[in-house]
């Protein structure tokens, strides 16, 4: 044994209770635990009560994999050409881009009204509530709602997708604005600067990074939605080709081609977004 051991604090020396909890049982903790328990129970219940229609599990799984193999290993062009596929992708990208730009511009002005530190609490709450209601309804549903007036097609898709983008980006932007340090606004106010001057000289430069990354994120979402809208709402583009290939010609090999196209675009968007984010953070 070593001669000198450093003095240790033995449990007896402190007045701490024998069992120490690191988490206090707060209201939010209870809510989280209850939610998790309910979800776990529902999952177990779900598995026991599946209606499997006497489907044999293993053969079905094998058949699905066989289909996957056909889709991804043997893609081909049949009802359209390579250049038509490129055109379809471009249309879909354009749909995503247009709705994101419309959403971003309108959301910018709305979020100025929604940010509590830029307006008053009443205005902020009104705008936030309206926007929350719009956001609660899925994009697809908005497109179908607008299709009543405009008919199924690209017009309904553009309006419906823009609508949802506006509400989503308003929330995102206004939260970025609210995170800005109070002092950055106070200092300009004290120089005698007006509201718009404060917005463009202090708020926007301060929040630029998050504005750009939120917008790009929404663009990625809108691209995905645009694919689905092509199929579901007849908005054209690669999604429509996919719908035709899948539900009309039952040509799963062509589905594979389209999937590869969409995958390629998604990867390009991802790379672009990381590049942009890395660059604006400097």
């Amino acid at each position, binding site marked *: 044994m070593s001669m000198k051991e450093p003095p240790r604090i033995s449990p007896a020396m402190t007045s701490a209770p024998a069992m120490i909890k690191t988490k206090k049982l707060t209201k939010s903790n209870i809510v989280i635990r209850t939610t998790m328990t309910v979800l776990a129970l529902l999952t177990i219940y779900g598995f026991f009560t599946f209606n499997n229609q006497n489907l044999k599990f293993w053969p079905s799984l094998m058949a699905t994999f066989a289909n996957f193999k056909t889709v991804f290993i043997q893609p081909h062009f049949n009802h359209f050409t390579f250049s038509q596929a490129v055109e379809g992708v471009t249309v879909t990208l354009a749909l995503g881009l247009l709705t994101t730009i419309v959403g971003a511009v309108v959301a910018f002005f709305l979020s100025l009204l929604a940010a509590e530190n830029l307006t008053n609490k009443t205005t902020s709450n009104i705008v936030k509530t309206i926007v929350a209601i719009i956001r609660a309804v899925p994009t697809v549903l908005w497109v179908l709602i607008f299709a009543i007036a405009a008919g199924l097609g690209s017009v309904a898709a553009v309006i419906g997708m823009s609508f949802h983008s506006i509400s989503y980006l308003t929330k995102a932007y206004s939260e970025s604005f609210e995170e800005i*340090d109070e*002092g*950055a606004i*106070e*200092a*300009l*106010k*004290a*120089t*005698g*600067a*007006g509201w*718009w*001057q404060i*917005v*463009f*000289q*202090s708020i926007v*430069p*301060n929040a*630029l990074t998050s504005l750009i990354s939120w917008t790009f994120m929404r663009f990625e979402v809108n691209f995905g939605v645009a694919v689905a809208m092509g199929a579901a709402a007849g908005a054209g583009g690669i999604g429509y080709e996919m719908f035709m290939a899948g539900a009309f010609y039952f040509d799963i090999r062509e589905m594979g081609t389209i999937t590869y196209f969409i995958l390629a675009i998604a990867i390009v968007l991802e790379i672009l977004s990381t590049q942009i984010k890395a660059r604006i953070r400097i």
Partner: protein
Amino acid sequence: MTTLLEMKHVSKKYGNGTVALSDVNFSVNEGEFVSVIGPSGAGKSTLLRCINKMIQATDGEVIFDSVNISGFKGRSLRKLRTKIGMIFQNYNLVERLSVIENVLHGRLGYKSMLSGSLGLFTNDEKQQAYHLLEMLGLKEQIYQRCDQLSGGQKQRVGIARALIQNPKLMLCDEPIASLDPSSAKTIMDHLKNISDSLKITVLINLHQVDIAMNYADRIIGVSKGQIVFNGAPSQLTSGDIKTIYGSDASNLMINIENHDRVKVAEK
């Protein structure tokens, strides 16, 4: 001596019922260097902000440059604020922008909505910004982004932003509280120099009594929202310190007698 600023029976009660100021009366002469001292929560920041109406006083009158500004709103308030510069403990710069862009923000109150929003400044204004930065020793950092500056440098940018307003009064809310002693001294020297050479009146909140005594022409002691001392630094006694800081005074390690002796020795 002409009076630049006069506070008459100014009170401030916050929405939650906190009385931050009650019946504050004092006046400041043109060119004076006045320091406000007092414990945390005494109402120093509130007092300063009632002058440029960043906080609206609940009661009383504020007379600035012989005009009662208590009811000022909108355009007239913006115009008034151009005449009052302000610097802050946390500098409050737009960190992503360059030094000169931050300095030019001091001109926004003079500009139209559009040219101000777009950041279109005249060459004259840019020249002025350059000269101020040169004077404050930041010539090399003009195009540097503000998040790359040290605390002392940031505060000098803050001073330049206030000076480019051509202010008659500078309000300083604990400008050296986040700085090391040597940067703090640089800032205090600059402020004193501004007051002496440009004849700008300075009203400065300070935590450090010794610094206040060294630099100020006059000291105003605030405690619990009331002015409990108003006089020259030489008149400040340990008793006054006790009145201002309460029972904590002995912890402040302020030795007034010693301080006086240093001052005498300097003379």
